[in-house]
């Protein structure tokens, strides 16, 4: 029972890291061991009688309760530390490999040390935290009770992070890092947080285990133990806490502990070794046949949204002649403006004239100058077009402005502040929001969640907010939910709200990009070919959204190849060719310009 309980705590910790946040932590068992060792080192008295060391150098005799707390904290900190070194932006399997090696070597280090950890002999005579209970059987039962209570505590804690706004943000980081940055999430911060909590839970698991057994040996935490937990998640269903429970109980509880009670065949331990063979086969079978596990990640379902005051905004209404069309368009425009303007941020106090000033930015890739000395501005509340032939450097310029690409020279000033060195996620939070030309959706979140996750400064996305629970962020969530539903309604995709974003069509994903950006309440919206591949009706919606933004005082920088649309929308158009600004002005005038014609035609 105790074993299952401690395994469960660890499994939930790992689920938070791997299942929900996508950190391939193959060194997880190291944190379990860290908790166990810390507890052991702190509580074992001096001159304990275990082999080798005559006097125990630390010999703290620290009271069990404090030792437990310290052990958990130390594990958590180790998690953050390893996270800082191991989780740089490398490909995920590379990270996994690094962590696997950390796991190998950590057991090597501890095995090699005979002073503190007593090397390969391990630690023994570790005091039971429940020493004060005199009866042996009473102590065992009480221990089961304590572990059960800790399990309940852990799952409640983990649920605070895997559910609600926090869990949504973590899953977003897992599904698409770039898009997560674009909606203002701090990838490293969230990862380290999760790594810390996961490791702390691992530590707790280790403490409880070592306190129960009273001894600890390095062979108990080989890297395969991490993989056993991982398998429990894969079998049970990663991302789902209940799945983790099922997987752990089935695999670790019933099976691996169970084999100990099977009759011995051949030599001792043979059954145990065969157990690993079966588990390995099982994992591979699941990877092939049911990669999502027994109990797939649950998609939160939200009640369908409140209806808009004017249901006419939906496209269900038959288009009756051009007068009806115009009417419909006008009403939709009004509805859009209402949604956008409700949240638009006006900074009347701020004194800048241009919301964006780009001065002399340059960047080359492999000797080719993608952008070379480009300079232009976007006034407050204006829609500015950025056009040019393929390879003119438009997307690179957008990348530099939004902070995804570091310029080699030049300066970007946003809302009166120099943001050249500011990371992309912070720019997004300040209201400099971009969309992607190739859509980046969070594929395992629903369409609705994709919008909700973008909401700015959600109270539920801070550590304390997540801990405080639903009541703390509920009201805010409701406001966001309403807003998201309004947007879905306006873009006529309400019926898709609970569909996984990965299964949407190309056009719907493109609308998702725009709606998600709108959820961030931008001051300046950078749109990278928002109309590419969209039907005429939907393109019109995008145009209307741009106009609503302008009316609400939000500026738009529009990269678009549909020049007719650019002409309708933009007061000023910047033409780029070969990495520099060729000319700027009104579209109608540019059309007649020989330079522009040559840029487009001759290249």
């Amino acid at each position, binding site marked *: 029972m105790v074993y299952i309980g401690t395994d469960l705590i660890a499994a939930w910790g790992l689920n938070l890291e791997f299942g929900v946040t996508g950190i391939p932590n193959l060194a997880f068992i190291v944190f379990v061991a860290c908790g166990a060792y810390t507890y052991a080192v702190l509580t074992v008295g001096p001159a304990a009688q275990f082999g080798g060391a005559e006097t125990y150098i630390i010999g703290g005799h620290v009271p069990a309760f404090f030792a437990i707390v310290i052990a958990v904290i130390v594990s958590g900190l180790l998690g953050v530390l390893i996270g800082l070194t191991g989780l740089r932006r490398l490909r995920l399997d590379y990270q996994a490999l690094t962590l696997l090696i950390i796991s190998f070597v950590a057991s090597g280090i501890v095995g090699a040390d005979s002073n503190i950890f007593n090397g390969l002999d391990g630690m023994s005579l570790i005091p039971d935290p429940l020493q004060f209970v005199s009866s042996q059987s009473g102590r065992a039962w009480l221990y089961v009770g304590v572990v059960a209570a800790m399990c309940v505590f852990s799952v409640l804690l983990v649920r605070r992070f895997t559910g609600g706004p926090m869990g949504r943000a973590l899953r977003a980081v897992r599904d698409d890092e770039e898009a997560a940055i674009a909606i203002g999430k701090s990838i490293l911060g969230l990862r380290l947080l999760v790594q810390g909590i996961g490791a702390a839970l691992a530590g707790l698991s280790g403490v409880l285990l070592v306190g129960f057994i009273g001894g600890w040996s390095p062979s108990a935490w080989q890297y395969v133990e991490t993989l056993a937990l991982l398998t429990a998640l894969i079998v049970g269903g990663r991302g789902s806490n209940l799945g983790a429970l099922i997987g752990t109980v089935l695999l670790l509880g019933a099976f691996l502990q169970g084999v100990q009670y099977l009759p011995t065949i051949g030599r001792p331990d043979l059954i145990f070794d065969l157990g690993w063979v079966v588990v390995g086969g099982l994992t591979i079978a699941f990877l092939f046949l049911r990669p999502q596990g027994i109990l797939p990640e649950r998609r939160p379902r939200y009640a369908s949204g409140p209806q808009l005051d004017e249901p006419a905004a939906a496209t269900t209404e038959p288009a009756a002649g051009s007068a009806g069309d115009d009417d419909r368009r006008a009403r939709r425009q009004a509805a859009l403006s209402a949604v956008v303007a409700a949240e638009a941020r006006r900074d009347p106090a701020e004194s800048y004239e241009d919301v964006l000033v780009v001065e002399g930015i340059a960047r080359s890739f492999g000797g080719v100058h993608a952008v070379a000395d480009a300079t232009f501005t976007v006034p407050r509340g204006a829609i500015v077009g950025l056009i040019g032939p*393929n390879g003119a450097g438009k997307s690179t310029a957008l990348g530099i402005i939004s902070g995804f690409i570091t310029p080699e020279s030049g300066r970007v000033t946003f809302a009166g502040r120099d943001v050249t060195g500011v990371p992309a996620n912070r720019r997004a939070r300040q209201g400099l929001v971009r969309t992607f030309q190739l859509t980046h959706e969070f594929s395992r979140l629903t369409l609705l969640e994709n919008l909700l996750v973008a909401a700015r400064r959600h109270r539920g996305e801070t550590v304390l907010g997540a801990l405080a629970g639903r009541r703390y962020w509920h009201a805010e969530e409701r406001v966001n939910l309403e807003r998201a539903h309004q947007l879905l309604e306006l873009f006529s995709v309400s019926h898709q709200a609970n569909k996984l974003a990965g299964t949407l069509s*190309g056009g719907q994903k493109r609308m998702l990009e725009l709606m998600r950006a709108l959820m961030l309440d931008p001051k300046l919206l950078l749109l990278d070919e928002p109309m590419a*591949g969209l039907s*005429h009706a939907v393109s019109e919606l995008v145009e209307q959204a741009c106009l609503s933004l302008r009316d609400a005082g939000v500026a738009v920088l529009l990269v678009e*190849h549909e020049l*007719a649309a650019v*002409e309708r929308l933009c007061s000023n158009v910047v033409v780029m060719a070969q990495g520099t600004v060729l000319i700027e002005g009104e579209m109608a005038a540019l*059309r007649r310009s020989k330079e522009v014609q040559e840029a487009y035609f*001759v*290249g």
Partner: protein
Amino acid sequence: MSADNGHVLRIEQLVAGYGDTPVIRGVDVEVPAGKLVVVVGPNGAGKSTLLKAILGLVNITGGEVMLDGRPITRSPLEDLARNGVGYVPQGDAVFDSMRVRENLEMGGYLLDKALRAERLEQALELFPDLRHKLKRYVGTMSGGERRMTAVARAMMLAPRVLLLDEPTAGLSAALTKMVLTEQARMLADRGTAVLLVEQKAHAALEQADWAYVLVQGEVAMSAPGREVLEDPDMGEVFLGGGSGLLADAEPAG
């Protein structure tokens, strides 16, 4: 046009795209031997997707691709190469960490030694500039030289038809002209059927024997290159966006 007389490559009513959304919606294209056929059109019209569909790199949901009258629809790329379809993908279609000679030898991977040497000599006759650079690593060469290497590599198998995907992307005006006249045009004149997809419509149309104007995945115009070039609506197609040829386009200036 009847049968496949003279047409090396023939595409009939091709429908193709990514996932469930078709980008190419029923396109017919014919490429005769010794002719330079270009496909032009505004961004997002599906030009590159058309090439990828011919090569089986995207999902085909309808229509046929015929090479010398035999269907090759959905054939894997390596089989097409063996059957006489040469392909120069967009961007860096070279092996950067290998020398020019090695790039060309890879192009002739399927040939025996003697034939490979012969073709290498022919390729160098086509592109004499490469002769002195055989030992250079392609990664250290300029954009124009890299394109030249890529095209020369594709010519090693003496393809019946050569597919070029925007070979001038990122090149200056002078280099663009060089690539189109000294590479695409010349290869066609020497008997290869060349299908060229090009963003820089003006320069490409000047060289083209025949041109297809692709708009929103459909052929909007099919005529000799000169005629397309002189068509008064063409400026509108490119500068007016995808709706340029349609009636609802707004008057330009």
